[in-house]
């Protein structure tokens, strides 16, 4: 780019950097604020004195969590959910996306299946029928309600399908001549050639299962079966939906909470996302762009 260093241009550069830095810091603030609260002295945290930095230093909150069985229980449920949910949907999604990536010539029913899948993405029966259906399967209060309840992540299937479709056709043709069947081709050739998009959908699905709280709230009647996000939601955010609530009651409710302890729990819940974040960052741009394939 040609550099024209007029005064106006320089002022713009400075102002621009300041604006962008403020925006960037605002996105870091949630993490920093939560962390600061969690290591602050309890009294300061609860009095609302923590704003931009920790006040005092105390690991009491983390120590308290160490002996909190309910917290670890929910943490464990979330881990199970992420592992089972991601693993299962990954296999199912890949197996679905491959035949759908074929042309109608190679797979006659392709278009019919595609329309069913798209219809399921765009239309749903609504909350109550969905809930009653899962109830009728006797899945309430089981981990399978959380793993299966969200149904097939159709959008991810489409991502995979579009990627498979753009793989060079001659690799597959060579394998066919060598006598490889469809399963060998899928898992021996197509999957190894598609690792970036598989990484993308794995991360998307994993983060979805980790972050999802609503199914946990609705499908689990027993608080001891809540996944971590639902546990935190109940603990920190939940306010009685009683319509007689007055502003004064609301004020008192918000003063009751143990801010530092809650922040420590929230921070622990964020940590896994932060750990996979570099990978997310690397792949998700590709993932989003793959969502739209122009032909």
């Amino acid at each position, binding site marked *: 780019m040609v550099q024209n260093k007029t005064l106006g241009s320089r002022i713009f550069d400075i102002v621009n950097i300041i604006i*962008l830095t403020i925006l960037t810091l605002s996105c870091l603030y949630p993490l920093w*604020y939560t962390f600061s609260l969690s290591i602050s002295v309890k009294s300061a945290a609860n009095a609302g004195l923590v*704003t931009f930095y920790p006040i005092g230093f105390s690991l009491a909150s983390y120590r308290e969590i160490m002996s909190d069985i309910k917290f670890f229980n929910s943490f464990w449920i979330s881990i199970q959910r992420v592992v089972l949910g991601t693993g299962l949907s990954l296999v*199912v999604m890949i197996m679905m996306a491959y035949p759908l990536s074929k042309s109608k010539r190679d797979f006659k*029913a392709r278009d019919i299946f595609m329309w069913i899948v798209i219809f399921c993405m*765009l239309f749903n029966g609504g909350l109550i029928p969905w809930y009653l259906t899962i109830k009728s399967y006797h899945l309430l209060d089981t981990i399978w309600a959380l793993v299966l309840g969200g149904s097939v992540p159709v959008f991810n299937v489409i991502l995979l399908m*579009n990627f498979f479709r753009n793989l060079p056709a001659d690799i597959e043709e060579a394998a066919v001549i060598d006598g490889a069947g469809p399963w060998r081709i899928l898992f021996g050739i197509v999957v190894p050639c598609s690792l970036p998009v598989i990484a993308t959908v794995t991360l998307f699905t994993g983060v979805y299962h980790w*972050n999802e*709280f609503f199914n946990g709230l609705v499908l689990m009647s027993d608080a001891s079966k809540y996944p971590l996000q639902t546990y935190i939601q109940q603990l920190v955010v939940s306010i009685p939906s009683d319509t007689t609530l007055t502003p004064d009651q609301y004020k008192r409710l918000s003063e009751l909470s143990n801010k530092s302890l809650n922040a420590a729990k929230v921070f622990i819940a*964020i940590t896994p996302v932060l750990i996979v974040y570099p990978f997310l960052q690397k792949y998700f741009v590709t993932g989003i762009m793959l969502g739209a394939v122009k032909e």
Partner: protein
Amino acid sequence: MKTKKMGIQKHYYLMMLPGMLWLLLFSIVPMFGIIMAFQDYNPGQGILHSEWIGLENFRYLFQLDDSKQVIVNTLIISIGKIILNLIVPLIFALLLNEVRSLRYKKFVQTVVFVPHFLSWVIMATIVIGIFGYNGVVNTIAGWFGGQPRLFMADPSIFRELLIGTDVWKEFGYNAVIFLAALTSVNPNLYEAAAIDGANRWQSMWHITLPELTPTIVLLGVLALGNILNAGFDQVYNLYNPLVYSTGDILDTWIYRLGLQNLQFSLATAAGLLKSAVSFILITVSYVLAYKFADYRIF
């Protein structure tokens, strides 16, 4: 050859089986529950034996004062989000595009995506931490002698709070598509413009923005399908009865109607209306996107 092709197709059906079964059990079977919307559903009698009442549920829904307010709230919040979630990321992408230091650019890009991957449960604890009664804003106001305010329980600013925090959480993520589109702008255009004496503002206005216009139009059209989705997760985690008047949206209302007040039939009817309208809107938006931007998802 033909029999061989049939043989392969058999395997394709087999590959589709688990996914289609999953869809059947958890997406398609619930669709049949829609008939509850036309019944006076009684859990004891079940779908097969509950009394049919035609469109009575729908008539009743529209008579409720709540329903109108809820629709108004949903539209205001979602349209506000749609507009600002286009404009703010666009401005952000344009500003970032003007930064010359690649390292700084990369740093900014890395950080601004973070909030997108945090759930609304987590973000709500932080929003409440900031705007709550003894939260950051009130504490800072206190330094300057201000009186603490109950932001989270004030219906007059709750929608703005929802829209603002949503934009804050998502602007980095929403900018990705703009940033990707910007990388494909031909650099020669800028050089030619500079030789012709264009300043940066003029280059931005006459080159960058027109290059982004198809993307802006596409995103705007696709957003149409979300007009009834004002963001359940966010609202549910931030609202309280004191702000129902402005903050209650279709999804939260249906949730309370159905699973807290156990009005199964009414909630199903409301959900059906929402699903049907959304379905039409999304279909229209896809058709428009295909016609005008050559965009197709499959």
